[in-house]
Protein backbone atom coordinates (compact mmCIF):
# COMPACT_ATOMS: atom_id res chain seq x y z
CA UNK A 1 0.00 0.00 0.00
CA UNK A 2 1.42 3.42 -0.82
CA UNK A 3 0.98 6.53 1.26
CA UNK A 4 -1.38 8.03 -1.31
CA UNK A 5 -3.79 5.11 -0.86
CA UNK A 6 -4.11 5.86 2.80
CA UNK A 7 -5.88 9.13 2.53
CA UNK A 8 -9.30 9.93 1.29
CA UNK A 9 -9.20 12.55 -1.48
CA UNK A 10 -11.56 14.84 0.40
CA UNK A 11 -9.21 15.27 3.38
CA UNK A 12 -7.66 18.75 3.29
CA UNK A 13 -4.20 19.10 1.71
CA UNK A 14 -1.50 21.21 3.39
CA UNK A 15 1.74 21.91 1.53
CA UNK A 16 4.14 21.85 4.48
CA UNK A 17 7.09 21.98 2.05
CA UNK A 18 6.10 25.45 0.82
CA UNK A 19 8.54 27.95 2.40
CA UNK A 20 5.63 30.30 3.11
CA UNK A 21 3.54 27.62 4.82
CA UNK A 22 2.46 28.73 8.29
CA UNK A 23 1.04 26.45 10.93
CA UNK A 24 -0.80 29.52 12.31
CA UNK A 25 -2.56 30.23 9.02
CA UNK A 26 -6.32 30.36 8.44
CA UNK A 27 -5.80 27.47 6.01
CA UNK A 28 -4.61 25.22 8.84
CA UNK A 29 -7.43 26.33 11.16
CA UNK A 30 -9.99 25.60 8.43
CA UNK A 31 -8.44 22.18 7.82
CA UNK A 32 -8.60 21.46 11.55
CA UNK A 33 -12.30 22.38 11.61
CA UNK A 34 -13.02 20.16 8.62
CA UNK A 35 -11.00 17.04 9.46
CA UNK A 36 -8.86 15.51 12.20
CA UNK A 37 -6.03 15.09 9.69
CA UNK A 38 -4.68 16.61 6.52
CA UNK A 39 -2.69 15.17 3.63
CA UNK A 40 0.78 16.66 3.08
CA UNK A 41 3.61 16.06 0.59
CA UNK A 42 5.16 13.78 3.26
CA UNK A 43 2.45 11.70 4.89
CA UNK A 44 -0.27 12.91 7.22
CA UNK A 45 -0.69 15.81 9.64
CA UNK A 46 -2.81 15.39 12.79
CA UNK A 47 -4.51 18.67 13.57
CA UNK A 48 -6.71 18.31 16.66
CA UNK A 49 -5.85 18.22 20.36
CA UNK A 50 -7.16 14.76 21.27
CA UNK A 51 -5.50 13.12 18.26
CA UNK A 52 -2.13 14.81 18.78
CA UNK A 53 -2.31 13.78 22.44
CA UNK A 54 -2.98 10.13 21.53
CA UNK A 55 -0.59 9.90 18.59
CA UNK A 56 2.36 11.44 20.49
CA UNK A 57 2.46 8.29 22.62
CA UNK A 58 1.01 5.76 20.17
CA UNK A 59 2.84 2.40 20.42
CA UNK A 60 2.84 1.96 16.61
CA UNK A 61 4.67 5.26 16.02
CA UNK A 62 8.34 5.98 16.49
CA UNK A 63 10.21 9.29 16.55
CA UNK A 64 10.32 10.42 12.93
CA UNK A 65 13.52 12.34 12.24
CA UNK A 66 16.08 9.59 12.88
CA UNK A 67 16.85 9.27 9.17
CA UNK A 68 17.18 13.03 8.60
CA UNK A 69 20.88 12.98 7.54
CA UNK A 70 20.24 10.19 5.01
CA UNK A 71 17.13 12.00 3.72
CA UNK A 72 19.35 15.05 3.20
CA UNK A 73 21.86 12.99 1.25
CA UNK A 74 24.39 12.79 4.09
CA UNK A 75 25.35 9.20 4.82
CA UNK A 76 28.68 9.40 6.62
CA UNK A 77 30.68 11.62 8.95
CA UNK A 78 30.56 12.38 12.64
CA UNK A 79 27.38 14.47 12.61
CA UNK A 80 25.34 11.69 10.96
CA UNK A 81 26.94 9.16 13.29
CA UNK A 82 26.06 11.26 16.34
CA UNK A 83 22.52 11.96 15.09
CA UNK A 84 21.73 8.32 14.42
CA UNK A 85 23.19 7.09 17.73
CA UNK A 86 21.85 9.73 20.11
CA UNK A 87 18.91 9.31 22.48
CA UNK A 88 16.24 10.93 20.31
CA UNK A 89 16.91 8.60 17.38
CA UNK A 90 16.73 5.44 19.49
CA UNK A 91 13.66 3.35 20.32
CA UNK A 92 12.82 0.39 22.54
CA UNK A 93 15.40 -1.10 24.87
CA UNK A 94 18.33 1.07 23.77
CA UNK A 95 16.25 4.22 24.16
CA UNK A 96 15.03 3.11 27.59
CA UNK A 97 18.58 2.35 28.76
CA UNK A 98 19.95 5.71 27.57
CA UNK A 99 17.00 7.59 29.04
CA UNK A 100 17.42 5.86 32.42
CA UNK A 101 21.09 6.81 32.41
CA UNK A 102 20.41 10.43 31.46
CA UNK A 103 17.44 11.08 33.77
CA UNK A 104 19.38 11.69 37.01
CA UNK A 105 21.36 14.49 35.33
CA UNK A 106 18.07 16.21 34.32
CA UNK A 107 16.35 15.70 37.67
CA UNK A 108 14.18 18.52 39.04
CA UNK A 109 16.36 18.36 42.17
CA UNK A 110 19.43 19.59 40.24
CA UNK A 111 17.39 22.46 38.84
CA UNK A 112 16.61 23.83 42.30
CA UNK A 113 20.32 24.51 42.77
CA UNK A 114 20.53 26.25 39.40
CA UNK A 115 17.65 28.69 39.97
CA UNK A 116 19.76 31.37 41.76
CA UNK A 117 22.30 31.12 38.93
CA UNK A 118 19.55 31.69 36.34
CA UNK A 119 18.43 34.80 38.25
CA UNK A 120 21.99 36.13 38.49
CA UNK A 121 22.53 35.52 34.77
CA UNK A 122 19.28 37.25 33.76
CA UNK A 123 20.03 40.27 35.94
CA UNK A 124 23.59 40.51 34.66
CA UNK A 125 22.38 40.61 31.06
CA UNK A 126 19.56 43.07 31.73
CA UNK A 127 22.04 45.34 33.58
CA UNK A 128 24.04 45.74 30.38
CA UNK A 129 21.21 47.40 28.43
CA UNK A 130 18.55 48.45 30.94
CA UNK A 131 19.60 52.09 31.20
CA UNK A 132 19.48 52.58 27.41
CA UNK A 133 15.80 51.67 27.28
CA UNK A 134 16.37 49.55 24.17
CA UNK A 135 18.13 46.42 22.99
CA UNK A 136 18.10 43.68 20.42
CA UNK A 137 16.23 41.20 22.57
CA UNK A 138 17.77 38.21 20.78
CA UNK A 139 21.44 39.28 20.58
CA UNK A 140 21.45 41.04 23.96
CA UNK A 141 19.27 38.72 26.00
CA UNK A 142 17.85 35.45 24.71
CA UNK A 143 20.99 34.15 23.02
CA UNK A 144 23.48 34.87 25.84
CA UNK A 145 20.86 33.78 28.38
CA UNK A 146 20.07 30.43 26.72
CA UNK A 147 23.77 29.73 26.22
CA UNK A 148 24.72 31.04 29.66
CA UNK A 149 22.25 28.58 31.19
CA UNK A 150 24.09 25.78 29.40
CA UNK A 151 27.41 27.17 30.72
CA UNK A 152 25.95 27.04 34.25
CA UNK A 153 24.74 23.51 33.65
CA UNK A 154 28.14 22.37 32.37
CA UNK A 155 30.07 24.28 35.02
CA UNK A 156 31.72 26.56 32.47
CA UNK A 157 32.38 30.28 33.02
CA UNK A 158 29.82 32.59 31.37
CA UNK A 159 32.58 33.99 29.12
CA UNK A 160 32.44 30.74 27.12
CA UNK A 161 28.91 31.51 25.91
CA UNK A 162 29.84 33.10 22.58
CA UNK A 163 32.01 30.19 21.57
CA UNK A 164 29.34 27.64 22.54
CA UNK A 165 26.60 29.61 20.77
CA UNK A 166 28.68 29.76 17.59
CA UNK A 167 29.41 26.03 17.64
CA UNK A 168 25.75 25.18 18.28
CA UNK A 169 24.68 27.57 15.51
CA UNK A 170 27.09 25.99 13.02
CA UNK A 171 26.00 22.50 14.02
CA UNK A 172 22.39 23.66 13.70
CA UNK A 173 22.97 24.21 9.96
CA UNK A 174 22.45 20.44 9.80
CA UNK A 175 18.74 21.00 10.41
CA UNK A 176 18.34 23.35 7.46
CA UNK A 177 17.62 22.73 3.81
CA UNK A 178 21.26 23.49 2.89
CA UNK A 179 22.64 20.76 5.18
CA UNK A 180 24.59 19.01 2.44
CA UNK A 181 26.34 22.19 1.24
CA UNK A 182 27.06 23.15 4.84
CA UNK A 183 28.42 19.72 5.72
CA UNK A 184 32.09 20.78 6.23
CA UNK A 185 30.99 23.48 8.72
CA UNK A 186 28.63 21.05 10.47
CA UNK A 187 31.32 18.39 10.72
CA UNK A 188 33.90 20.81 12.13
CA UNK A 189 31.40 22.13 14.71
CA UNK A 190 30.41 18.60 15.75
CA UNK A 191 34.08 17.67 16.19
CA UNK A 192 34.64 20.76 18.36
CA UNK A 193 31.61 20.01 20.51
CA UNK A 194 32.64 16.38 20.99
CA UNK A 195 36.14 17.57 21.97
CA UNK A 196 34.55 20.00 24.43
CA UNK A 197 32.51 17.15 25.92
CA UNK A 198 35.68 15.06 26.25
CA UNK A 199 37.43 17.85 28.16
CA UNK A 200 34.48 18.22 30.53
CA UNK A 201 34.39 14.48 31.17
CA UNK A 202 38.15 14.33 31.81
CA UNK A 203 37.84 17.15 34.35
CA UNK A 204 35.03 15.34 36.25
CA UNK A 205 36.90 12.04 36.19
CA UNK A 206 39.85 13.82 37.80
CA UNK A 207 37.58 15.62 40.25
CA UNK A 208 34.18 13.91 40.74
CA UNK A 209 31.16 16.16 41.34
CA UNK A 210 27.39 15.98 41.75
CA UNK A 211 26.61 18.48 39.01
CA UNK A 212 25.19 17.70 35.58
CA UNK A 213 28.38 16.35 33.96
CA UNK A 214 29.45 14.69 37.21
CA UNK A 215 26.13 12.82 37.36
CA UNK A 216 26.50 11.62 33.76
CA UNK A 217 30.11 10.57 34.41
CA UNK A 218 28.86 8.47 37.37
CA UNK A 219 26.32 6.78 35.08
CA UNK A 220 29.26 5.94 32.80
CA UNK A 221 30.95 3.91 35.59
CA UNK A 222 29.10 0.86 34.25
CA UNK A 223 30.06 1.05 30.59
CA UNK A 224 27.54 -1.62 29.61
CA UNK A 225 24.83 0.88 30.64
CA UNK A 226 26.42 4.06 29.23
CA UNK A 227 29.50 3.69 27.05
CA UNK A 228 32.17 6.38 26.70
CA UNK A 229 30.81 7.36 23.28
CA UNK A 230 27.21 7.43 24.55
CA UNK A 231 28.31 9.70 27.39
CA UNK A 232 29.85 12.18 24.94
CA UNK A 233 26.83 11.93 22.62
CA UNK A 234 24.52 12.77 25.54
CA UNK A 235 26.52 15.87 26.49
CA UNK A 236 26.51 17.04 22.87
CA UNK A 237 22.73 16.53 22.76
CA UNK A 238 22.24 18.58 25.93
CA UNK A 239 24.23 21.49 24.46
CA UNK A 240 22.83 21.24 20.94
CA UNK A 241 19.25 20.72 22.09
CA UNK A 242 19.28 23.34 24.81
CA UNK A 243 20.54 26.50 23.14
CA UNK A 244 18.43 27.34 20.06
CA UNK A 245 15.19 26.07 21.59
CA UNK A 246 15.44 28.27 24.67
CA UNK A 247 16.73 31.27 22.71
CA UNK A 248 13.79 31.04 20.32
CA UNK A 249 11.17 30.35 22.98
CA UNK A 250 12.03 33.37 25.14
CA UNK A 251 11.99 35.57 22.02
CA UNK A 252 8.55 34.22 21.12
CA UNK A 253 7.43 34.95 24.68
CA UNK A 254 8.48 38.59 24.34
CA UNK A 255 6.65 38.90 21.02
CA UNK A 256 3.45 37.53 22.61
CA UNK A 257 3.69 39.92 25.55
CA UNK A 258 4.41 42.92 23.31
CA UNK A 259 1.17 42.08 21.52
CA UNK A 260 -0.60 41.70 24.90
CA UNK A 261 0.76 44.54 27.08
CA UNK A 262 -1.89 44.07 29.78
CA UNK A 263 -0.57 40.51 30.33
CA UNK A 264 2.98 41.84 30.75
CA UNK A 265 1.82 44.38 33.32
CA UNK A 266 -0.03 41.62 35.14
CA UNK A 267 3.12 39.47 35.21
CA UNK A 268 5.16 42.39 36.56
CA UNK A 269 2.63 42.84 39.37
CA UNK A 270 2.30 39.13 40.09
CA UNK A 271 5.69 37.42 39.52
CA UNK A 272 4.21 34.12 40.71
CA UNK A 273 2.39 33.97 37.38
CA UNK A 274 5.72 33.45 35.57
CA UNK A 275 5.47 29.66 35.70
CA UNK A 276 1.99 29.72 34.16
CA UNK A 277 3.16 32.37 31.67
CA UNK A 278 5.81 29.97 30.32
CA UNK A 279 3.15 27.30 29.78
CA UNK A 280 0.73 29.71 28.13
CA UNK A 281 3.41 31.08 25.78
CA UNK A 282 4.37 27.54 24.81
CA UNK A 283 0.73 26.72 24.14
CA UNK A 284 0.07 29.57 21.75
CA UNK A 285 3.56 30.29 20.37
CA UNK A 286 5.86 27.26 20.73
CA UNK A 287 9.23 27.26 18.99
CA UNK A 288 8.68 23.60 18.10
CA UNK A 289 5.50 24.00 16.10
CA UNK A 290 5.10 20.34 15.19
CA UNK A 291 6.78 17.01 15.87
CA UNK A 292 7.17 14.07 13.54
CA UNK A 293 6.47 10.38 14.00
CA UNK A 294 6.78 7.38 11.67
CA UNK A 295 4.59 4.26 11.63
CA UNK A 296 6.58 1.15 12.59
CA UNK A 297 3.87 -1.22 11.29
CA UNK A 298 0.49 -1.09 9.56
CA UNK A 299 -2.28 0.06 11.89
CA UNK A 300 -5.67 1.74 11.85
CA UNK A 301 -6.41 4.99 13.66
CA UNK A 302 -9.82 6.70 13.61
CA UNK A 303 -10.81 4.23 10.85
CA UNK A 304 -7.89 5.43 8.74
CA UNK A 305 -5.44 2.71 7.68
CA UNK A 306 -1.88 3.94 8.19
CA UNK A 307 0.86 1.90 6.50
CA UNK A 308 4.26 1.12 8.01
CA UNK A 309 6.71 3.85 7.07
CA UNK A 310 4.08 6.60 6.87
CA UNK A 311 5.23 9.95 8.25
CA UNK A 312 2.76 11.48 10.70
CA UNK A 313 3.25 15.16 11.57
CA UNK A 314 1.68 16.12 14.87
CA UNK A 315 0.67 19.76 14.61
CA UNK A 316 1.23 20.71 18.26
CA UNK A 317 0.56 24.40 17.79
CA UNK A 318 -2.68 23.97 15.81
CA UNK A 319 -3.86 21.37 18.34
CA UNK A 320 -3.34 23.80 21.19
CA UNK A 321 -5.86 26.30 19.87
CA UNK A 322 -8.40 23.55 19.04
CA UNK A 323 -11.80 25.08 19.94
CA UNK A 324 -13.05 21.65 21.06
CA UNK A 325 -10.64 21.90 24.02
CA UNK A 326 -9.90 25.62 24.35
CA UNK A 327 -13.24 27.43 24.37
CA UNK A 328 -11.43 30.76 24.54
CA UNK A 329 -7.94 30.19 23.09
CA UNK A 330 -6.80 33.83 23.51
CA UNK A 331 -3.46 34.40 25.27
CA UNK A 332 -4.18 34.57 29.00
CA UNK A 333 -1.57 33.71 31.63
CA UNK A 334 -4.26 33.39 34.33
CA UNK A 335 -6.38 30.81 32.47
CA UNK A 336 -6.54 27.22 33.64
CA UNK A 337 -5.44 25.22 30.58
CA UNK A 338 -5.05 21.66 29.49
CA UNK A 339 -1.38 20.76 28.91
CA UNK A 340 0.37 21.96 25.72
CA UNK A 341 2.64 19.83 23.53
CA UNK A 342 5.57 22.23 23.35
CA UNK A 343 7.87 19.62 24.91
CA UNK A 344 6.51 16.80 22.77
CA UNK A 345 5.20 13.83 24.71
CA UNK A 346 5.45 10.12 25.31
CA UNK A 347 8.77 8.27 25.42
CA UNK A 348 10.56 11.17 23.68
CA UNK A 349 9.16 13.92 25.94
CA UNK A 350 11.85 16.62 26.13
CA UNK A 351 14.53 15.49 28.56
CA UNK A 352 15.55 19.05 29.41
CA UNK A 353 12.09 20.40 30.18
CA UNK A 354 12.68 20.96 33.93
CA UNK A 355 15.71 23.10 33.08
CA UNK A 356 13.89 24.94 30.28
CA UNK A 357 10.83 25.59 32.43
CA UNK A 358 13.04 26.74 35.31
CA UNK A 359 15.23 29.09 33.31
CA UNK A 360 12.37 30.60 31.31
CA UNK A 361 10.32 31.17 34.47
CA UNK A 362 13.16 33.07 36.14
CA UNK A 363 13.86 35.08 32.98
CA UNK A 364 10.25 36.18 32.45
CA UNK A 365 9.85 37.07 36.12
CA UNK A 366 12.83 39.45 36.06
CA UNK A 367 12.20 40.81 32.57
CA UNK A 368 8.62 41.78 33.43
CA UNK A 369 9.80 43.63 36.50
CA UNK A 370 12.69 45.45 34.87
CA UNK A 371 11.47 46.13 31.31
CA UNK A 372 8.19 48.03 31.50
CA UNK A 373 5.98 48.68 28.50
CA UNK A 374 8.10 46.79 25.94
CA UNK A 375 7.40 47.49 22.25
CA UNK A 376 8.97 46.65 18.91
CA UNK A 377 11.60 49.22 17.94
CA UNK A 378 12.29 48.30 14.31
CA UNK A 379 11.77 45.32 12.07
CA UNK A 380 11.76 41.89 13.66
CA UNK A 381 13.54 39.29 11.55
CA UNK A 382 11.88 35.88 11.77
CA UNK A 383 12.72 32.28 10.93
CA UNK A 384 10.07 30.55 8.80
CA UNK A 385 6.82 30.08 10.70
CA UNK A 386 6.98 26.27 10.79
CA UNK A 387 9.22 23.52 12.08
CA UNK A 388 11.36 25.20 14.73
CA UNK A 389 10.58 28.89 14.62
CA UNK A 390 11.62 32.09 16.38
CA UNK A 391 13.10 35.54 15.88
CA UNK A 392 16.61 36.06 14.50
CA UNK A 393 16.66 39.66 15.69
CA UNK A 394 14.10 41.65 17.67
CA UNK A 395 14.80 45.33 18.32
CA UNK A 396 12.71 46.45 21.28
CA UNK A 397 12.33 49.60 23.37
CA UNK A 398 11.02 49.74 26.92
CA UNK A 399 10.75 51.93 30.00
CA UNK A 400 13.42 50.94 32.52
CA UNK A 401 11.78 50.38 35.90
Amino acid sequence: MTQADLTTPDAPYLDVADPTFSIRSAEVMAARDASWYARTPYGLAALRYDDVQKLLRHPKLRQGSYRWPAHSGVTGGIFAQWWESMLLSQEGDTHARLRRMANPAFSPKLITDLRPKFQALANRLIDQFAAKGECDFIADFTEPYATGVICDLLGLPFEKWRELADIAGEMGLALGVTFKQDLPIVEAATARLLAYAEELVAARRAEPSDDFIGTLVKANADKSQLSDQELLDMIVLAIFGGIDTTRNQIGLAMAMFIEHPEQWALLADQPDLAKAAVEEVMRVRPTVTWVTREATEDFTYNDLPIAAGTTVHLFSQAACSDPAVFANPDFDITADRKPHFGFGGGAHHCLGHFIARGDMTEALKLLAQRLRNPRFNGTVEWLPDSGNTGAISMPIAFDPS
Partner: protein
Amino acid sequence: MKVDVDMSICLLHGQCVIAAPAVFSFDDAGGLVWLSDVDEGLRGDVEAAADACPEQAIVIG
Protein backbone atom coordinates in the same frame (compact mmCIF):
# COMPACT_ATOMS: atom_id res chain seq x y z
CA MET B 1 6.58 1.22 50.18
CA LYS B 2 3.25 2.56 48.88
CA VAL B 3 3.16 3.88 45.32
CA ASP B 4 0.34 5.89 43.78
CA VAL B 5 -0.12 7.87 40.57
CA ASP B 6 -2.31 10.96 40.42
CA MET B 7 -4.27 10.03 37.31
CA SER B 8 -5.81 13.52 37.17
CA ILE B 9 -2.43 14.85 36.00
CA CYS B 10 -0.80 11.74 34.46
CA LEU B 11 -0.46 12.17 30.69
CA LEU B 12 0.70 8.62 29.94
CA HIS B 13 4.14 9.64 28.67
CA GLY B 14 5.42 6.33 30.03
CA GLN B 15 8.64 7.72 31.53
CA CYS B 16 7.91 5.67 34.69
CA VAL B 17 7.63 2.53 32.55
CA ILE B 18 11.12 3.31 31.23
CA ALA B 19 12.57 4.19 34.65
CA ALA B 20 10.99 1.39 36.72
CA PRO B 21 9.64 -1.34 34.41
CA ALA B 22 9.20 -3.77 37.33
CA VAL B 23 6.67 -1.41 38.90
CA PHE B 24 4.92 0.48 36.08
CA SER B 25 3.59 -0.85 32.79
CA PHE B 26 0.99 -0.21 30.10
CA ASP B 27 -1.93 -2.60 29.67
CA ASP B 28 -3.16 -3.68 26.24
CA ALA B 29 -5.55 -0.73 26.10
CA GLY B 30 -2.68 1.72 26.70
CA GLY B 31 -3.69 2.46 30.31
CA LEU B 32 -1.06 2.79 33.05
CA VAL B 33 -0.94 0.04 35.66
CA TRP B 34 1.39 -0.12 38.65
CA LEU B 35 2.13 -2.07 41.80
CA SER B 36 0.75 -0.11 44.73
CA ASP B 37 2.78 -1.98 47.34
CA VAL B 38 6.41 -2.25 46.30
CA ASP B 39 9.39 -4.01 47.85
CA GLU B 40 11.93 -1.62 49.43
CA GLY B 41 14.56 -3.11 47.14
CA LEU B 42 12.96 -1.21 44.26
CA ARG B 43 12.96 2.16 46.03
CA GLY B 44 15.76 3.51 43.85
CA ASP B 45 13.86 2.70 40.66
CA VAL B 46 10.58 4.13 41.99
CA GLU B 47 12.29 7.34 43.06
CA ALA B 48 13.92 7.58 39.64
CA ALA B 49 10.47 7.17 38.06
CA ALA B 50 8.96 9.84 40.30
CA ASP B 51 11.82 12.19 39.39
CA ALA B 52 11.57 11.49 35.68
CA CYS B 53 7.78 11.93 35.44
CA PRO B 54 7.30 15.11 33.37
CA GLU B 55 4.01 15.79 35.16
CA GLN B 56 5.36 14.85 38.62
CA ALA B 57 2.31 12.61 39.10
CA ILE B 58 3.91 9.80 41.15
CA VAL B 59 3.36 9.79 44.91
CA ILE B 60 5.60 7.61 47.09
CA GLY B 61 4.06 6.83 50.48
